[in-house]
């Protein structure tokens, strides 16, 4: 029975993937002239028609449109979650945790910028009832202490407590908070993955998450080294202590190297050799995050098409949905700020 139900969930997920935006639809969207045009197109020609059905596309606000797009994706995960058995739905819970972390980190950033009242404006309402963190209480936080008090009964409390501003260090260190929160998240995620009964499932999920970590680490090194000119000690503190394709030695070698060539070589190794994709070009090095997303996109599509494990297919679908959301946000922002269609197109990950 389990095998059959797994297959039906996989089929359902692949059907949802089949309804995702196609190249032609992206091209049509890029040619839209305004946010209402985008909303009208999504309402009339795409799978977003369900969520936008009762919305007046002429008066819709950009923020509202973005929230609705995210809500549609979330409803898709929820539909799949509905069919998952207890062993599999841990992955869904981790997705919710990631949303929680994103919202907590957004609040920390707003506290740092002394503008916490803005939090409520962008808070996705659909998360309020799903998250274990009381997001409405979190929205009321006006200091780091308030934030900690709100998270008192959650496992995030201990993680953030050590970053509480002190008399000596009164400023909030956002980067450290982000690093700790994601380290904590990956630790819990790997723990769930390693308790999976099927070997192939463990392997696939490890590869998907491991790639994500490798990409995060390499982007962090690149950002710190090339853009912020940080010293090796600072860079090491930004590295997530989970090593997959990129071994600890390789990372340390890249951090300690004096030239950027070493870093480029490392990226070439990671992208070209490990994942069998085209060599990274000189110009693409400067758009490393976009290139990394392309890699993630390729890997997830591979697993979504070929894997027989529900968790893998579900997680791959989740990542691909997030990529679609970011594509749509690129388009919305691009059209809002009159960016040329070609430039928007170059940012899209398909």
């Amino acid at each position, binding site marked *: 029975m389990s095998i059959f139900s797994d297959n039906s969930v996989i089929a359902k997920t692949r059907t949802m993937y089949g309804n995702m935006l196609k190249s032609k639809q992206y091209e049509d969207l890029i040619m839209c002239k305004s946010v209402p045009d985008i909303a009208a197109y999504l309402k009339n020609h795409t799978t977003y028609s369900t969520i936008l*059905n009762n919305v007046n596309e002429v008066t819709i606000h950009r923020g509202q449109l973005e*929230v*609705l797009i995210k809500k549609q994706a979330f409803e898709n995960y929820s539909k799949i979650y509905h069919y998952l058995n207890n062993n599999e739905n841990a992955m869904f819970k981790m997705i919710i945790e990631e949303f929680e972390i994103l919202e907590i980190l957004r609040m920390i950033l707003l506290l740092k910028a002394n503008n916490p009242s803005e939090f*409520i404006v962008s808070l996705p309402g659909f998360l309020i*009832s799903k998250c274990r963190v009381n997001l409405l209480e979190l929205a009321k936080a006006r200091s780091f202490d308030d934030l900690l008090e709100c998270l008192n009964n959650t496992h995030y409390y201990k993680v953030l407590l050590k970053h509480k501003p002190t008399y000596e260090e009164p400023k909030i260190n956002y980067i450290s908070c982000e690093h700790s929160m994601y380290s904590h998240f990956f630790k819990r995620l790997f723990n769930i993955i390693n308790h999976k009964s099927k070997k192939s499932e463990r392997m696939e999920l490890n590869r998907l998450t491991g790639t994500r970590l490798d990409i995060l680490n390499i982007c962090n090194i690149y950002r710190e080294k090339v853009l912020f000119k940080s010293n090796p000690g600072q860079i090491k503190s930004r590295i997530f202590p989970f090593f997959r394709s990129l071994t600890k030695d390789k990372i340390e070698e890249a951090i300690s190297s004096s030239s950027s060539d070493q870093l480029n070589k490392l990226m070439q190794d990671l992208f070209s050799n490990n994942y069998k994709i085209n060599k990274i070009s000189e110009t693409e090095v400067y758009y490393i995050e976009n290139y990394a997303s392309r890699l993630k996109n390729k890997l997830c599509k591979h697993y979504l098409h070929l894997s027989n494990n529900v968790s893998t297919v579900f997680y791959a679908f989740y990542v691909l949905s997030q990529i679609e959301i970011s594509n749509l946000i690129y388009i919305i922002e691009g059209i809002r700020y009159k960016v040329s269609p070609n430039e928007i197109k170059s940012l899209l990950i398909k």
Partner: protein
Amino acid sequence: MSIDKMSFVNIVGKISDLDETLVRTVQCEMFHPENVENDAKIDGFTNLSEPNPYTDVLNKINQILFMLNIKPRFEDYHSLELDDGNCRFVDEVFKKITSDTNEISKLNVMIDLMNQSLLQIKHMSKLSVNIENIFKAKYVDVRFGRMPIDSYLKSSYFSNKLFFFLPLDKSKDFCWGIYITPIKYSTETYNCFKSLYFEEYCIPDYVRGTPQFAISNIEAQIEEEKTNLEHIKSSIDAFKDKNSKHLLQLYCKVKMLHDTFEYRKFAVVGRKKFHINGFVPHSNINTFVKMFDDMSGVVVESLSAEENNSHTPPVKLKTCWLFKPFEMYVETYGLPRYKDLNPSSYIGLVYCILFGIMFGDVGQGIVLFITGLLVWKLKKNVIGLILTRCSVFSVLCGLAYGSCFGFEGLFSNFWRMIGLGSIFPFNILESTNSMKILMFSLILGVAIIIISMIINIFLNLKNHKIGNALFSNNGLAGLTVYGGSLIAMILMIVLSINVFNPIFIVCAIVFPLFVIFFSKPLSNAIDKKLNNNNKEKLEKFNAIDASFDMVDIILSYFSNTLSFLRVGGLALSHAALMLVVIKFAHMAAGTLLNPIIIIIGNVFVIGLEGLMVSIQALRLIFYEIFSRFYNSDGKPFKPAKVVFEKNSK
């Protein structure tokens, strides 16, 4: 198998007679106009290029007909003159109908707006106070609208602000309600609700009283506007009933004048004279010339089409009534050249024979005949007429197969009666007969290919293309190779006479193939010698191209012949499909299902096989026949005429 002979006509006349001349040429519907060539223009003649004075009035009448929903059609207009009175009438009707249509649009917009308001007010139905009293409050700001349900969840965040939100109605996605806030905090509250994506609805002035009262009031207003709408529509309908005939007459008159004026572009004028050139079918030339007898200022000169060098004569197919519907297939492929022949009858006959062999069933043939008649009567579609012709052959072949609605072995008494009982009925599913039907289709294919080659030789000789007639793969050389090989094979297989001796091989195969290989230089040489004035560009000979062509030609002799095997194959598959239907019916013998299975099975086979057979027969004609002799460069005969009906052919 002929193409209507054409006469070239040159009409010369006084410029004052131009309009009348054009009216007569258009009304007779037998004159195919051509642009006057440069030699006439050199003498100071120029083309006429004036704006059409009837365009405006025709547009107006077209719009009137469209707005009144009158389908444009012919109505006798000969008693009508397009005088000032009628032009004024068109203007007045246009104004009236436009204003009525605008009024209808306005009313429709108003009804839509009221319906939308009604929809919103219904969300307020929980309130039991006067709406205008709430919204006219002096010290508080009250706004009605909706917000996404997610935002409603977030609204509790603002619990410490000085406003309250009263939810009135909820759906899956939205929450409708009103918020009330002191005037002092109006802007701050507005910003809070803006961040919650609150969409405000302005309550129109006509909404008064409690929501329940307002709803009934708006519903009454909608009804009132609908009555007004109906009133205008009925007045338009009354006008339409009274004037539709007169409007159609006006339309036809103006359309005739407009379209006739358009043909002025074919005329050249100069020295107070005009010239119009064109073609008229030779059989109508006397009638055409006599038409202008009473116009002393107009002279009609006619020449045979061959005598005119400046224009290619148009092609008007002339086919007997039996095969006339098959002109459609010829036109689809492209018309033949003026000097070639009309293949409609030939392909019609071949199509019917092939169809009959592949779809031989008396009962189904009768069904097809009735279907064809209905299609023609109801839809005026030529396919219907083609079906009636094919179905006759289907019935004849069905008689030969002894098949009716899938029941085999019938009509044996009929065949015995006429003394052919030893041959017919010919049950094609019997193992010996299956092979015979396949052999027969091959022989039929060979005959068709040979006839097509002979037609090609005849046409090339007729058009003085001796090279092509003698040396091409579909000419005499090709016929010798193809026919010679087949005759030799038949002699060897049937009569055990081996004629494949060196002399035969050299004369009937090697030499003709050698000629085909060098067909281009040979044709060029012979055509050059026979037609000294021929300015056609000669084709260059390339040995490599010729070698590849040779392989293709030899292979195509085999493949094109074998292609006809499908005729036998489809005849067998038709019989086999019906066998399956009858087997299924037998399984349900004695029950109500039996006739149902037979009926559904027959309908299915008629639909599926009918389509397949039609396509395959057409494929054989286009590929195996037309490719051998047919040139589709013909120019269609398009007589000047006025088309009154929209989309009419």
